[in-house]
């Protein structure tokens, strides 16, 4: 064999790894906010009385859910310039991640909206609230509470999938790992350490969401 593990390079690499981790966190933060906002609009659109709107969202959801994220990323970054839409790698990554996540969370938010009893909106209308107020103040908070665990899982899945945006040269965690292993020739150790950092990040995100969810949506959020 003649190959021993060595982690001496880690000290010099700490800065690059921290930078990559920060970029990963930045990407997933943007994606979470944008993706969930879009999916609330889309979930409402799926329940609108306009057939065209309902169908368009349904097609979008099916196309995204049945094709690989990496292919969507390549299509957006390499394919769209043929139509004159040229995106910076970071922007392309955020667009691809947001569109991907929104498709999944549209289904999740939709399930949450369906779970709120009809009586809730009837009661709100009876109190004289306008349709928008009923949706934003009565239905949505209850729906979000039900689906919060599923949303949390989806954010973590997306964060782990974001490792492939390294392929369009966004300098996030996985890309820093690629650069490091090319420089240090310590491929296994580099990917091992970076994999553990991803594990730590996903556990941290879960804790953060559970704590944040309890605070914003009240007790009973797990």
């Amino acid at each position, binding site marked *: *064999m003649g*190959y021993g593990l060595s982690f001496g390079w880690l000290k010099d690499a700490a800065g690059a790894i921290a930078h990559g981790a920060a970029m990963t966190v930045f990407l997933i933060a943007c994606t979470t906010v944008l993706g969930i906002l879009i999916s609330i609009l889309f979930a409402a659109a799926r329940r609108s009385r306009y057939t065209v709107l309902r169908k368009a969202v349904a097609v979008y959801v*099916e*196309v995204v*859910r*049945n*094709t*690989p*994220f*990496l*292919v*969507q990323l*390549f*299509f957006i970054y*390499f*394919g*769209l*310039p*043929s*139509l004159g839409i040229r995106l910076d790698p970071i922007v392309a990554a955020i667009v691809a991640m947001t569109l991907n996540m929104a498709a999944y969370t549209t289904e999740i938010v939709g399930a949450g909206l369906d779970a709120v009893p009809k009586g809730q909106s009837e009661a709100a209308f009876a109190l004289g609230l306008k349709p928008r107020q009923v949706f934003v103040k009565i239905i949505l908070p209850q729906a979000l509470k039900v689906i919060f665990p599923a949303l949390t899982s989806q954010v*973590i899945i997306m964060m*782990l*999938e*974001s*490792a*492939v945006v*390294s*392929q369009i040269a966004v300098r996030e965690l*996985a890309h820093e*790992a690629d650069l490091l*292993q090319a420089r240090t020739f310590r*491929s*296994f150790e580099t*990917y*091992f350490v*970076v*994999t*553990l950092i*991803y*594990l730590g990040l*996903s*556990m941290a995100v879960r804790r953060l969401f559970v704590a944040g969810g309890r605070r914003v949506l009240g007790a009973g959020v797990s």
Partner: protein
Amino acid sequence: MIEFTFWDILRNLIFATRWTVLLSIVAFAGGAAVGLAMLAARISERPWLRRFGSGYIALFQGTPLLMQLFLMFFGLPMLGFRIEPWTAAALGLTFYASAYLAEIWRGGVEALPRGQWDAGASLGLHRLQELRLVILPQAFAITRPAAVGFLVQLIKSTALTSIIGFEELLRTANAINNATFEPFTVYGLVAVIFFVLCYPLTQYARMLERRAPAH
């Protein structure tokens, strides 16, 4: 310079799809086998086995598949094995699938009433016999929609093996794109092919879910 017509591109892509399909089948079968072992560990009566099972699942579900593939591809040569992209891809996806399938089936096992185990025991069955003859058939039936849904996930995940050099659909597409400079067409077609593979399964999973008996 070689000229590619639309049909040349499509034909080459469809030809490469067989590797995507084969890899999906191998990974699903391998994942089911390893997943069963992990399920047995996860619900074992020995605490250390249960801890091992849940640690294994947490590790594979909490880290990116891309990193798992890289570790497989760069790690095994360190142990002295020469490894082809195909082997690394099949092994990496097998472990990944096993964690998810074990977790899906555990959900099914835990949904069953405790009395099912007791009934098996009263018939004089060993724990493994109970699992095989009484518990698993029912757990599989309950979780079939989720397992089919995961198969879709797995098929899409095979695209990642292009990055470690396995010549499946997406890697072939990258090569064609380098020759034709028609990324819009090439990646658009790849998306269509994946959609054609996955959509019927998604619909099947949905149908199973609708049909599922209420528990």
